[in-house]
C-alpha cells in the first residue's frame, strides 16, 4: 500500500516536487553539447595558440560565431545543472549549500552573457 495520494502519483513529481525536470534538462543539454564539444575542443586548441588577428577572423565568421554563442548558452546551462548536483552531494551545511547554489547560478548567467556579448561584438564589428 502506498501512502502517496492518487493525485501525487498522477503528477509524478516525487519528494523534491520537480519530477524528472533536472534529469531531463541535464540529458537534453548533454545531447546538444555532443557536436558542440567536438567543435569547442578544436577551437580552443586552435585559438589558444593563435595571435589576435587569427582569433578575430575566426570568431567573425558567422558559423563560428553562432556555434560559440550556442556552446556558451548550452554549456553554462549544463555546467550549472552539474555543479548543482556536486554541491548538493558534498555540502551538508544548509546555508553554505544554498549560498553556493545561488553563487553558481548567478556566475553561470553572468559568464554566459559576458561571453556571448564578446562574441557578438567581434562578429558584428562594433
Amino acid at each position, binding site marked *: 500500500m502506498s501512502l502517496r495520494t492518487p493525485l501525487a502519483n498522477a503528477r509524478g513529481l516525487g519528494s523534491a516536487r520537480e519530477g524528472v525536470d533536472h534529469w531531463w534538462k541535464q540529458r537534453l543539454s548533454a545531447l546538444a553539447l555532443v557536436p558542440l564539444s*567536438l567543435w569547442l*575542443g578544436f577551437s*580552443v586548441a586552435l585559438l589558444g*595558440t593563435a595571435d589576435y588577428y*587569427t582569433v578575430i577572423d575566426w570568431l567573425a565568421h558567422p558559423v563560428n560565431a553562432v556555434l560559440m554563442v550556442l556552446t556558451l548558452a548550452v554549456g553554462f546551462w549544463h555546467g550549472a545543472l552539474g555543479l548543482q548536483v556536486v554541491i548538493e552531494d558534498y555540502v551538508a551545511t544548509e546555508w553554505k549549500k544554498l549560498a553556493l547554489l545561488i553563487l553558481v547560478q548567478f556566475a553561470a548567467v553572468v559568464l*554566459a552573457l559576458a561571453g556571448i556579448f564578446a562574441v557578438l561584438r567581434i562578429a558584428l564589428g562594433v
Partner: protein
Amino acid sequence: MAADRDRPLSPHLQVYRLPLTGITSIAHRITGVVLSLGAVLVVALLVAAAAGSQTYQVLYDASAHWLGQLVLFGFTLALYYHLCAGIRHLVWDAGCGYELETARRASWLVIGSAVVLTVITWVIAVAMNGS
C-alpha cells in the same frame, strides 16, 4: 561494546582500491568541475579578444608559456573525456551496458577515445597554426 563487532565496512576511500569503473565514474565528475573552471578561461579569452589587441596580448603571452599550453591541453583532454564518458551515461540511460565485462571494456574505450580525440585535435591545430 557494539563497536568491537566484526561488521562489514563500507569502502574506505583512503585504503580502498577503486575498480576501473569507479575511477572513470569519479573522473567524469572531476572533469565536469574542471571544465566549469575552464569555462571561465574561455570567457576570459573571448572578452579579451573583444576588448582589443593589447588586452588579448596579455592572454596570448600567458598561453605561449609552457604552463599556459599545459592548461589548454588539459582543458581539451578534460573536455573529450567528459564528452566520451557522457555519451556512455546516455547509453546507460537507454538501459544498455550494465554487464560488468561490458562496463569494464567501455571504461577503456572512453579513456582511449578521449586520448585519441585530444591527440588528433592538437595535431590538426598545430599543423594549421604552423602553416
